[in-house]
């Protein structure tokens, strides 16, 4: 068994009086695909937001590779190697497809505004590697041909792949995918499953929030089931499929 890379300890998030996450404990092992499922309002997106620093947890902690990341700002967490996609694709619409992916290289490069303005040699060399890496990751997600299209002009399914490509370009340790299959057809979903497999094979730990059970059961090594902000079940797909609590939540109580 690989070691735990991301660990949540008693993570709690309250909005006013509403408890969105209730003292959640779980760990994600390196190099696996962990799926987070649960009914609407179970706290899945809140969990992602807490993990990526969009909001800080009310109490509890999250550690990446043993160092605490909860409470850090989004961009600091990104720098430590967590990349993500969004439930509604957040592509940078004023740029080309390639430029979107090039933004992904932000944490791996360092030229500031002054170096850029003066177009120093260092900056130009860096720019070339950013471009090369961008094209490489575009090919990984299969969008190489669209590199110079305006990002706003590509269809929604392609935008999701673009977001994944952009996240990959950051060469993250952990990749969070927030409902990547939403709005995709069966064929596209199948391709997405394959892509997620490739990403895991690249050594990246994947956490995926998803409603599409077929996809989840297909790709997940472990599944975390949330209900009302608490952990309902945690284990392998087989274990989850057999869990009476999960069946009760998903299918209603059998009398």
């Amino acid at each position, binding site marked *: 068994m690989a070691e735990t890379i991301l660990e949540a300890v008693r993570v709690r998030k309250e909005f006013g009086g509403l408890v969105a996450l209730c003292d959640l404990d779980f760990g994600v092992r390196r190099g696996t695909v962990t799926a987070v499922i649960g009914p609407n309002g179970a706290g899945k997106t809140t969990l992602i937001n807490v993990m*990526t*620093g*969009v909001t800080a947890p009310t109490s509890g902690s999250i550690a990446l590779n043993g160092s605490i990341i909860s409470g850090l*700002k*989004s*961009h600091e967490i*990104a*720098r430590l190697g967590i*990349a*993500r996609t*969004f439930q509604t694709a*957040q*592509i*940078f*619409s*004023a*740029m080309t497809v390639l*430029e979107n992916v*090039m*933004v*992904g*290289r*932000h*944490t791996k*490069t360092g*030229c*500031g*505004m002054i170096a*850029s*303005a*003066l*177009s120093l040699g260092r*900056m130009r060399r*860096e*720019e070339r590697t*950013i471009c090369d890496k961008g094209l490489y990751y575009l090919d990984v997600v299969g969008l190489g041909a669209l590199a110079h299209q305006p990002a706003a002009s590509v269809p929604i399914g392609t935008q999701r792949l673009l977001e994944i490509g*952009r996240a990959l370009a*950051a060469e993250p340790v952990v990749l969070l995918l927030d409902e990547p299959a939403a709005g995709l057809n069966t064929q596209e979903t199948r391709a997405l499953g394959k892509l997620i497999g490739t990403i895991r094979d690249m050594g990246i730990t994947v956490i995926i929030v998803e409603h599409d059970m077929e996809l989840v059961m297909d790709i997940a090594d472990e599944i975390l089931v949330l209900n009302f902000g608490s952990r309902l079940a945690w284990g392998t797909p087989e274990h989850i499929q057999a869990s009476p609590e999960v069946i009760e939540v998903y299918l209603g109580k059998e009398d």
Partner: protein
Amino acid sequence: MAIKRHLPLMLFGCAAAVLPLGLKDPYYLGILVFIGIFSIATMGLNLLMGYAGQISLGHAAFYALGAYATGLLTAKYNVHFLPALIAAIIVTAAIAYVIGIACLRLKGHYLAVATLAVGEIVFICLNAAVGFTGGPSGLAGIPSIEIGGFSFDSDFKFYYLVWAVFILLFILTANIINSRSGRALRCLHSSEIAAAAMGINVTKLKVQVFVLSAVYAALAGVLYGHSVTFISPQSSDLMFSVKLLTMIVVGGMGNLWGGVLGAALLTLLPEMLSAFHDYELIIYGSILLVIVMFLPDGLMGGFEALGNKIIRKVRARGRG
């Protein structure tokens, strides 16, 4: 690729270089000088608004700070121009930094009002500090710009100075836009949360671009002060901030050429309309209205759409 990217600027530079040779009239040169000055100010504001998506209704304040800083230093304290310029840039950048840190947490209309308030406060202070700035009566006797013994003391020389500064800044700005920082900047416009998720320090970047755009405005102000040799708070009131913003929207947001086009239009239009006397205001307003209504992406957007149309037609004909 590099040559292709810089071709419009090179053509523009050549045109700008030969234009005054056939146009010796100080009146026309004066108009072109002002267009250049406003273009520099809009370039900074465009970086902030068109690219980073942050609004500012207080840029007139930085324009005034620049103009007053070098104006006071050279006219009252006999400081040479270059050290005065450096001082002006540092002062403006420092003030913009403080304002930026405080205000840029705000968004949308709230940011607009906060920057507006800052601009007005600076305006009121310039008016009230009569002993220092000359108050509403203004600061007269600002000397011509002198660099290394060469004095830019005629409209002709000043024209070249302004447009040289413009082209230099244009190159620097274009470099920024097409770089790592520039891409980060453009991310802010679409989605701050996604930008942060990509590791971009949104707060820091916003403050950086705010300071940078303030420095552009200050440079424009410096040039204005030394070109007119007189500055009063009135030339940098709220309406001037609004005018800069209008120039960008009319010319085309998020396009460096848009600012120039807007500056040219809004400077030339009143000159051309002045024959209409009291009707000028209403005609000016109507033209503005029509442009914004029918060219929502500004003149630049309109030109691009037209260009694309022509290219498509030509291609279609070529095929057919």
